[in-house]
């Protein structure tokens, strides 16, 4: 166990994967030679260590990068490709949605696509809506794709390794706002199982389900809630597809209340699915309305003032929790 940043943890996962499996290769824009000479970059130093055969810088061609992954994975490789920012996934989406996610079903199970797509996400670095746009609900809505979103360096490493060696296509979301965050990371080939949520803190009054950087907004809110004598159970999903329904339902059956928090737009966001699932499967346990915390239905703005308004803050979480209690 040692202290590592998020980026270093991801770098360790990529290094291990390249070391233990000859079929693993890396491709993307600047994954070899980068405009950022920053040891916190997940792909930092991989080219020097593994060479140009296995670490491939590509042209600025997101569709080609994704096509590369789909075709190569169907031939037995385990490509790990990078789409620089989440909104750019629209350029790669035909390959991911119509091909990676659907071709196995249409082949009658004869083909498989063990590919990984790493994508940077998050709101708060001032680049605006064409670099910041959390599209996890789009991915989750597309059959045949898995999607994970780590919130700690340890899970970044463990989930990325699990994704790379999973037999299906997995999108790994790397939250930019957590890039320099440090945490304990176990050494060696550690795997965080896909589809297993983490209970971050236990509580009795309200369940808060979240993922990615929003987890830390929730944690900030806990102090203020604690001061009011409200005890919350916080669940970090880690994996959206597959979804750990059982962890959510078990907690809601215990607390009787649910708040969902994410940085994506609330309307038709992933939280809507969670709210609906709980309403359908644990309605009898609910003591109050389900509340969702998310962003308004507007493009991510660029002004720091607007960006701050866009992103849910701890006070929004507090209001939502109080709302489930009729306060």
């Amino acid at each position, binding site marked *: 166990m040692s202290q590592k940043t998020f980026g270093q943890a991801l770098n360790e996962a990529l290094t291990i994967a390249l070391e233990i499996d000859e079929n693993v290769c890396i491709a993307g824009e600047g994954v070899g030679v980068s405009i950022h000479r920053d040891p916190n970059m997940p792909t930092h130093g991989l080219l020097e260590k593994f060479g140009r055969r296995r670490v491939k810088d590509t042209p600025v061609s997101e569709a080609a990068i994704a096509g590369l992954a789909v075709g190569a994975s169907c031939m037995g490789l385990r490509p790990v490709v990078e789409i620089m920012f989440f909104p750019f996934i629209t350029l790669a989406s035909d390959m991911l949605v119509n091909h990676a996610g659907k*071709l196995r*079903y*249409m082949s009658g199970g004869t083909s498989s696509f063990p590919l990984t797509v790493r994508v940077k996400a998050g709101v708060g670095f001032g680049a605006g809506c064409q670099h910041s746009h959390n599209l996890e609900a789009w991915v989750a809505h597309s059959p045949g794709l898995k999607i994970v979103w780590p919130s700690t360096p340890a899970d970044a490493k463990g989930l990325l390794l699990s994704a790379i060696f999973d037999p299906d296509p997995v999108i790994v979301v790397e939250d930019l706002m957590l890039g320099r965050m440090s945490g304990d990371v176990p050494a060696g080939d550690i795997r965080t199982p896909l589809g297993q949520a983490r209970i971050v803190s236990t509580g009795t009054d309200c369940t808060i389900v979240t993922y990615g950087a929003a987890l830390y907004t929730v944690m900030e809110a806990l102090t203020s809630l604690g001061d009011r004598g409200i005890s919350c159970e916080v669940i970090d999903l880690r994996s959206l597809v597959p979804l750990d329904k059982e962890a959510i339902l078990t907690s809601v059956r215990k607390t009787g209340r649910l708040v969902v928090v994410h940085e994506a737009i609330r309307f038709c966001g992933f939280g809507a699915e969670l709210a609906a699932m709980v309403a359908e499967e644990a309605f009898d346990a609910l003591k109050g309305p389900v509340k969702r915390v998310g962003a308004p239905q507007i493009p991510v703005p660029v002004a720091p003032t607007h960006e701050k308004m866009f992103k849910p803050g701890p006070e929004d979480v507090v209001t939502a929790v109080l709302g489930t209690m009729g306060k």
Partner: protein
Amino acid sequence: MIEHRLDPDLQTRLYTRMVLTRTFEEKIAELCREPGRMPGMQILANGQEAVAAGMVSALEPEDVIISNHRSHGHLLARGADLNALMAEIMVKGQGVNGGKAGTLHLSVPDLNILMTSTVVGAGPLLALGAAFAQQYKGSSGITVVFFGDGAAAEGSVHEAMNLAGVWKLPLLFVCENNCWAGAQRLEEHCATRHIFQRANGYDIPGRSVDGNDVEAVYNLGLELAAYCRSGKGPAFMEALTYRMRGHGEQDPQDYVDPKELERWAAKCPIRGYRQKLLKEGVLDDVQIQSIHEDAATRVEAAVAFGDASPYPGPETFLSDVFVQPPSV
């Protein structure tokens, strides 16, 4: 182009493959006219048989094929099982993909017919990955991707040509220019009459060939496949041919000048090749008749097989989405 004098066995094989494809697809067209017999869209390649037979016959078993919505000829030339193929086209459980592909998404990985995509222009991107895997593994195989003149307007084709050129991938682009993209004529949808020249923009050798001359396609296919196999990088073939039927079987083709269809019917790749083989004494009338009868018998048997096969049942409705499905 190197002119190979083809041996008579190969010539017979080329002819037989074209006849089988034509017979197979004419049968499908016939079944489409029987209400309720053929579910979904049927998209046929009548008139384009020489491209499929010529190109696929020039490949080695380790070579990978990526096809598109007009795929039957490619699969038949590769030797796909006729019964399982027809059953799949009829969307039956004993089809080659268990009735989950239908005619539009056929794949036979055992024959290296890796994938078929009906998203127009997607094939070249998938082919990039297949060719990259071949290069990565040091395989002697190449990847061949078939797409049309319509697909050539998709940006994806250009991304694929660029990256294949940069990495010198063993990838042969085969553009079957059948003069139509849906109901739009070539001159309405394509800024050039010479699609193969676009390859120059990527420093890829681009060549064009009479796509209704099966031997010409075979010879150029062999030459370009050898180029790709040698490690020099990708190559591009434009095969000039003609779509004799509509975009799909529902398409009445009322936008097509009947005289143009007549002109191209006179250039039928099968009839032209038959005359050549008869003239060269490679085959006689009796042998020709036997090839046609054999194709008809095999196609009838395939339809009977498809008819006898049930539609896929509920047991496969939800399966095959993931290798490792979520536990809930």
